[in-house]
């Protein structure tokens, strides 16, 4: 016997409404593949490509708390903004972010990253300078690679000094797709 869908759904919504969850997540279908996204009471905490849910839930439990539950409705706003962005209807995300668990340097870099405008690119070195440490281009590369909220924190806009795309946590194809969507490359 499995739990009927409506009963299951009713509990998940009630848990969310009761405000007792440390994090709510869902898997969102997109043209980039399934995206696991998670929100806390502070904001969007995670987006990940090619999700391994079990590993992601454990990570969330460590960072936000053990009361992690899949609640599709809690991700409605995130889902809508992602869909609009991927369809070319939205250029700026209007979502609060939760960067708990990130080291201070990573937070400084991600703050600067958030300011790189739609349709433009910056180099790893640029971002290192803006975060106050011009020689930390390599460390910036690491922060990009571990970006907890790709797409919304636009690490796809960060390229090598020669203009080459270099790398992307979600794979170069996705980086290219996003830059093309934004008109940053042809």
């Amino acid at each position, binding site marked *: 016997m499995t739990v009927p869908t409506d009963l299951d759904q009713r509990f998940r919504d009630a848990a969310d409404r009761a405000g007792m969850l440390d994090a709510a997540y869902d898997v969102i279908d997109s043209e980039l593949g399934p995206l696991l996204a998670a929100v806390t009471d502070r904001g969007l905490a995670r987006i990940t490509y090619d999700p391994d849910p079990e590993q992601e839930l454990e990570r969330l439990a460590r960072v936000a708390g053990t009361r*992690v539950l899949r609640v599709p409705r809690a991700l409605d706003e995130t889902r809508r903004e992602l869909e609009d962005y991927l369809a070319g209807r939205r250029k700026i995300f209007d979502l609060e972010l939760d960067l708990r668990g990130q080291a201070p340097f990573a937070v400084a870099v991600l703050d600067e990253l958030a300011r790189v405008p739609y349709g433009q690119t910056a180099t790893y070195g640029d971002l290192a300078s803006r975060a106050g440490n011009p020689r930390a281009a390599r460390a910036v590369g690491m922060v990009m690679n571990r970006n907890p909220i790709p797409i919304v924190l636009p690490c796809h806009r960060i390229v090598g000094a020669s203009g080459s795309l270099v790398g992307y946590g979600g794979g170069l194809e996705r980086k290219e797709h996003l830059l093309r969507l934004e008109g940053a490359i042809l």
Partner: protein
Amino acid sequence: MDAVATIPPFESFYTEHAAEVLRLLRRRLGRERADDAFQETFLRALRAYDRLRHADHLRAWVLVIAERVAIDTHRRAGEPTGELPELPHVDGRPAYEELAFLTDTLPPTERAAVVLRYGYDLDYEQIAAALDSSPDAARQATSSGVRRLRRRAQ
């Protein structure tokens, strides 16, 4: 690896035990009332979840919460609280039913506390979480249950 199992994300705990909890509640309450009791059971578990110290006995823990919700439902309806659920063995520990013949005449809270303490070896904090009360109250319920059993045995 950790020797003590870490507490799993609530999602894993819920998906693992949801079907069994619903089965128990349907047996105790019938299909219709089981739905509300199901939600109540997992909301109680969620409320207490961040107070758990380890992941032992999670199955027993949630089944006892379900049993407690079933008792409350019967009580609200002014009905007798019914039989104890039949639970198979957990980790080779004595199962609920093995203590039932001793404890089924105790008041519901004392019965649940005694069974959790001596049947499942839960600590008072876990028992408190399962019964939605405090560790002190859980300790008190357990010892008055035991005293009552001793008096009856004499």
